């Protein structure tokens, strides 16, 4: 098989190294005692202390988490309801408007939202961020859930109605359990996308609502470098844990 050849393995290893070496060096340099980026001045936890003592980092973190949770809740709930109920009232064909939001570069989405908010004089802040992130979220939730929902045998739904269940009961007891893995997957997806989102958050930040990526960007622009390393390292570790947890849960579920 071509994949067993040495040059293939060499190439793939090279690509993985390409993907990981910058990140690993970044994490290594979070322990740099020195002030400036590429001068290694000794091992030190100094910057970790600075970051943990920094009020701004804490605020950015809580903002990010809050916005992410709200975006997940809103998009997953609205998305699940849409996916189940849309075929029942003929609005299925409108699904296109959700798919388009993925096809548009985020900067255009962000700029148009910004334009509308400034026209309506809505103060930019957590709410505007949540609104934007939910739009992003819906763009991911609806395709994922739709795909999963199509796999549901429609005869199951019919059987449920025949047995006298209302649509709501069918939704809760038949559709949701079936959609559950996709619900969790899309929730996780939206959560991480919201946490990592930069372009939309950058254009729509308002009073005291820097999210982590925007905060990182402003730190980089200000040249306050080693703090960026620390925060990035912590974020990478956090997402590793979340993804690892998710894979573990998935594998447990499959083997039980």
């Amino acid at each position, binding site marked *: 098989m071509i994949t067993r050849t040495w040059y293939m393995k060499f190439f793939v290893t090279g690509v993985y190294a390409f993907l990981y070496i910058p990140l690993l060096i970044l994490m290594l340099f979070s322990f740099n005692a020195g002030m400036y980026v590429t001068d290694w001045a000794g091992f030190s936890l100094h910057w970790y202390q600075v970051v943990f003592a920094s009020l701004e980092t804490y605020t950015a973190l809580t903002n990010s988490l809050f916005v992410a949770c709200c975006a997940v809740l809103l998009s997953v709930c609205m998305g699940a309801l849409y996916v189940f109920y849309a075929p029942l009232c003929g609005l299925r064909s409108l699904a296109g408007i959700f798919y388009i939001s993925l096809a548009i570069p985020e900067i255009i989405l962000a700029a148009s939202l910004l334009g509308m908010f400034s026209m309506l004089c809505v103060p930019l802040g957590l709410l505007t961020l949540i609104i934007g992130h939910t739009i992003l979220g819906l763009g991911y939730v609806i395709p994922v859930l739709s795909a999963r929902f199509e796999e549901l045998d429609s005869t199951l739904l019919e059987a449920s109605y025949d047995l006298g269940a209302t649509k709501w009961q069918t939704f809760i007891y038949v559709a949701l359990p079936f959609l559950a893995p996709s619900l969790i997957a899309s929730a996780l997806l939206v959560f991480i996308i919201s946490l990592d989102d930069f372009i939309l958050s950058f254009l729509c930040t308002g009073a005291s609502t820097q999210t982590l990526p925007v905060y990182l960007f402003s730190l980089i622009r200000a040249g306050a470098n080693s703090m960026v390393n620390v925060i*990035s390292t912590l974020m990478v570790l956090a*997402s590793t844990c979340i993804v690892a947890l998710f894979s573990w849960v998935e594998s447990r579920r499959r083997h039980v």
Partner: protein
Amino acid sequence: MRELIQKEFPFLFTIPAVLWQMLFFCIPLVLIVVLSFQSSPVIPGIAWTLDNYRSVFTHAHAIIIVRSLVLATSTALLCLIIGYPVAYFIALCTERWRSLLVFLVTLPFWTNFITLVYSWFFIVEKNGLINKILLWSGIMQRPLVLAYNQITVMCVMTYCFLPFMIISLYTVLEKLDKRLLEASADLGATPWQTFMRVTLPLSIAGIKTGLLLVFIPAFGEFAVPIIMGGSRYLYVGSTIMHYFMHRASQHSGAAFTILSSIILALSVYVALLYLKALYNTFKRR
């Protein structure tokens, strides 16, 4: 009456998502279009003008759009060339290795974009990894200035978008029936022929998704040229950002946004047509 309302429950529950999308996605886009025809950003509907478009149909703006197209296309193609073998490799791996490799690819995917860009400083700076290797091995006497040029920008873009491509390709390649490959080999095809006639056509959907998933965001990118490119060139993303940062220029910004969107849509359409033509030629052969 009660029955009527109960009958309309589906509508009640479907409408939030639709309304949300309309209010916060469709309407802002419409507003942008309207704004692009205004002469002042304050009150729409007062003064319709084509001036914004005139100020945007300049040589300089065209260069910006072309530059973004070039960057996005090269990023997408590079990601494809590098990513396809990797996705193919993972798809044909044993189950044990596969989950580990997929996990390792998704990690950078979950990592925050700014972090990914920033990590490249440690590679290309004067005291960075590349220069350290060059100096230590004696190839160069003095360090190269690698940061802040457009090649670096392209490398960093490829780095950031590679996981997207690999995952898109993998999703499709994983579903490939391996028996088809075996059958093809049994029928006497060389590995290259199997690849060209069996694997590639069957994975065209993944290639399409991957290319779009890289091309479209890469077109609107602005952080990388600012951080890694020394802000020497404007791309579509940074231009839009600049225009929208000043209220007085938002209407020109809207015109530019519409212009770039049209060009983006046209490019994607052309690219998809091209891909379809390629696919057909493969099928025919």
